[in-house]
Each structure stands twice: as C-alpha cells, then as structure tokens.
C-alpha cells in the first residue's frame, strides 16, 4: 500500500519506519492501559535508534569508496562502544568497562580476524563492517548477560562464598560454580538461535540477502555461517569476561569486594 503512495525510496523508507514505529506505539498504549509506563523509555529508544542507524547508513554510504582497511577503525570503535554499553549491565562490578571491552575485543575481534583471513567474511568494507558488527553486538549482549548474572549470583550468595573463603578456599574456587553458571546462562540465546534457526525465525541477514536477490540456498547457508560465528565469538567473549571479572571480585588477600550495597 505504501509503495503505491511513495516512489522515492527515501520517502518510502521513512513511511515504512513510521508504520513500524506506529506498531511500537500501539504496544506502548496497550501497556499504559495496564499501568506499565514505557512511553518515555521507548520514545527515546525509537528516536535514538532511528537517528543512529540513519547516521551509520550515511557513514556506510561515504565509506563505500573508502579503502578496506578503514574497517579496522570502525570495528574498534564499535567494540569500545559495546564495552561501555555492556559495562552498564554490571554496575558495581570493579573494572566492568575494561573487562567488557577486552572480552569483546578478544572474543568478537579474534573471530572476525580469523574468519576474514580464511575468506569466510569478505574484505570489502560493506560486508566486513555489517557482519563484524553483528558479531560484536551479539558478543556485547552475551557479555552483558554473563556479568549481570555473575553479579547477582555473587551478591545473592555472599554467605556461601565467604564461608568457602573462611574455610581456606581461594577466591577462584569460592566462585567457581557461579562463574560456570553465568557462562552457561549467557550462551542460552546464542545456542537457542542456532537450534531454532529456520524453524522459529528467519534472521535479518538471510531476509536481507533474499530481499536483495541472492540465491536462497546460499543465503540460508551463509546465515548458518553467521550464527556459528556469533556463537563462537559470544562464547569466547563470555569466557574471557567471566575469567577477567572473577579476578577483580576479590582483593589480593582473597577478600570478597563485591557486596550488597557496595559502592559502585
């Protein structure tokens, strides 16, 4: 229907964005009637999301002719931003930003580098940056989940952890089961995406490739490739971040530094 009204692709895009945002606003309205107030948060998120993605679109437009090596700078900036975002999920964790940034750099960065070298990810900036950003974004989510879970588990089990310390355990073994638990929990979304691939959802990348006329079978296989890379980079990120944060939860004298109400 919108296509008959708008012929200019940019206007069409804005109209489509408006229609999709309208659906989101209806949900806000429904929530409001049940006493749940999302309007401010979602309003800001919608506007912010649109501006950010349009800005990135414009940058990509400019970068179509930029040399491929500039991808490195874009991806690095994304990793730092991802580190800052997921550190916000771990308030009160000592050094959360540094740990998150390092973990995402190790996890997503190494998989991007390896897969680019192997030729799984193409080197043109228009492929490397969007695919890389998918790995970074998923690593960010996983990292946020892992740190958030570890933080709440440690705070909920201060008694058990300090009992272990008081019996002569070191910090590492006192939190081993919580580190394990948060690592596993953080990977549930990545594992479930792989398991339900094609059955529950046809992910964005494949949808995009199909929309732009790629052969369906190749689009399908490449979607699997991307999800497998997402799993690898997320897993590596979560592994690195839980190990790095574990060391920071304790002082050098094996004292638990993270407590309920501890200063952030």
């Amino acid at each position: 229907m919108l296509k008959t009204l708008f012929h200019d692709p940019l206007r069409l895009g804005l109209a489509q964005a408006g229609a999709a945002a309208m659906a989101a606003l209806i949900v806000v309205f429904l929530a409001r009637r049940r006493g749940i107030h999302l309007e401010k948060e979602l309003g800001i998120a919608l506007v912010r999301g649109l501006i950010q993605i349009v800005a990135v679109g414009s940058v990509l437009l400019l970068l179509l002719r930029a040399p491929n090596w500039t991808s490195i700078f874009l991806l690095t900036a994304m990793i730092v931003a991802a580190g800052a975002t997921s550190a916000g999920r771990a308030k009160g964790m000592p050094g959360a930003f540094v740990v998150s940034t390092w973990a995402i750099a190790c996890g997503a960065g190494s998989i991007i580098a390896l897969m680019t070298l192997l030729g799984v990810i193409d080197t043109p900036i228009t492929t490397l940056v969007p695919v890389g950003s998918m790995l970074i974004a998923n690593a960010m989510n996983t990292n946020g989940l892992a740190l958030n879970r570890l933080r709440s588990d440690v705070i909920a089990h201060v008694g058990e952890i300090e009992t272990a310390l008081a019996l002569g355990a070191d910090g590492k073994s006192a939190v081993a089961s919580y580190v394990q638990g948060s690592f596993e929990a953080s990977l549930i979304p990545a594992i479930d995406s792989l398991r339900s691939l094609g059955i529950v959802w046809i992910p964005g990348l494949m949808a995009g490739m199909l929309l732009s006329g790629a052969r369906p079978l190749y689009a399908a296989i490449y979607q699997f490739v991307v999800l497998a890379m997402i799993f690898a980079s997320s897993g590596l990120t979560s592994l690195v971040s839980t190990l790095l944060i574990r060391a920071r939860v304790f002082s050098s004298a094996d004292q638990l530094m993270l407590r309920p109400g501890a200063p952030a």
Partner: protein
Amino acid sequence: MELSSATHLVNSIALRVDNLGRTVSGKILLENISFSVPPRETVAIVGPSGSGKSTLLRLLNRLDEPTTGTVFLDGVDYRELPPRELRRRIGMVTQRPYLFPGTVADNLQFGPRQREQTLSDTAIERLLGSVGLPDYALRDVANLSGGEAQRVSFARTLANEPEILLLDEPTSALDESSKHGIESLIQTILGKKSDLVPGSDEVQHQPLSCVLVTHDMAQASRLAQYAIALAAGHIVKSGRIEEVFRVEDPVS
C-alpha cells in the same frame, strides 16, 4: 580503658589484636581495638547491634582488611601469612551454617580439599561423633534440621584443625531446643565439658581459643572467661567477664 586486662593476666597469648580499626567510605566502623586472647580461653564480644561485633570478627580472619592496626597470631603479624593458611588456622562458624550442596561428608571434606588433602572415613566419623551426629556422613544436607546443619557447620570448621575458633552468634538463628544443644556442643569443643555423645570416648579435643560474638549476656557468661563490650565501634569495657558484666554504680 581500651586495653584488656587479659593481656596482663596471662603469660602466653594465642591472638593479639593491636589497634585494629576499619573505616569504609569515611565511616568509622571500628577504631582503636586492642585485646588479647589467651590460649584455651574464650573472649566474648558483646554490645548492641551495629556496635561493630561482627565487623571485628571479620577482621580477625581477614575476611575484611583492617584500615589500621593488625593481628598477631602466635606472635606473627597475620598480614605476613598467606590468607588461606591464616583462615585454616583461625576457623569461623557463622550464625547461619551456609552448607554447600551435597552430603555431610562433602562439606567436611571442603576445607582439607583446599589443601589437596582428603579426610579418611574414620576421621569423618570421628568429627561427626564429636558434634553429636554419628552416621550422618552420607546424608544430603538439604534434609537436615537447623540444629543439625549448625552441627555440620562446626564439624566442617573443625575438620581444618583450627587453633582459634571465631563464633558469630552461633545459636541466634536456632529455635530454643537446638540452641541449648549447640551451646552444650560449644562447651564440649572449648573443653569445658566432657563429651556429650555416649560411646564416642575417642574424642579428645585440644581445647581451642575462642572469640565469641553474642548479644546474649547469659550465654557469654556461660561460655567465656573474658569479655569485651563494644559500643559504636569502640571498646567501652573489657576484662574478666564478671568485671565487665558487673552492674555499674548508677551514680558514676
């Protein structure tokens, strides 16, 4: 007034607390705490809630870092000992037992396992006998009563063969009947009473030095020889327990 007369009454000292203090974000939790624990004697720390009793106990096994002062264990500054060895030698039992999931035996093995040691079945049975829980080794801790769990917690701490025992309100989370049993167990462990379990006469505790935090004055009198009264993070009175608990002259 802050020095314990205990210092002058005994020749040797198991634990000496020297000018200990802790300040967190500008708030003074404890200040200028000095006292000694004589070997095989019990010092009770009493005072209203929020006076710093538990904070002080946590400094004694270095679960928290003192801001000032230090503690000498057998004459050695405890900051020179590896924290894990220090905490093995200064065992702690808290208000709630915080047992680890698994069997009673798993819990008893926890401490020794940290040093790559394993308790023999005989050793486990002996420990369980000494806390009045013979044949409990293979029970799942999830099925224990509050009093039984606290007994396991004592046995778990004793499995580390500590030299000093820190007790933080060890009976206050229990119902009246278990309270009595645990207090009598503490008396046995502290060597003030012969074994409470009939038939396990092999139990031979080396009486331990002990620091007991309690809000129960009567319990303190039953278990301790010395007392330290805290208020707002400072020692207000210390000495032999009968002196500390003597009712003040209302005029002074």
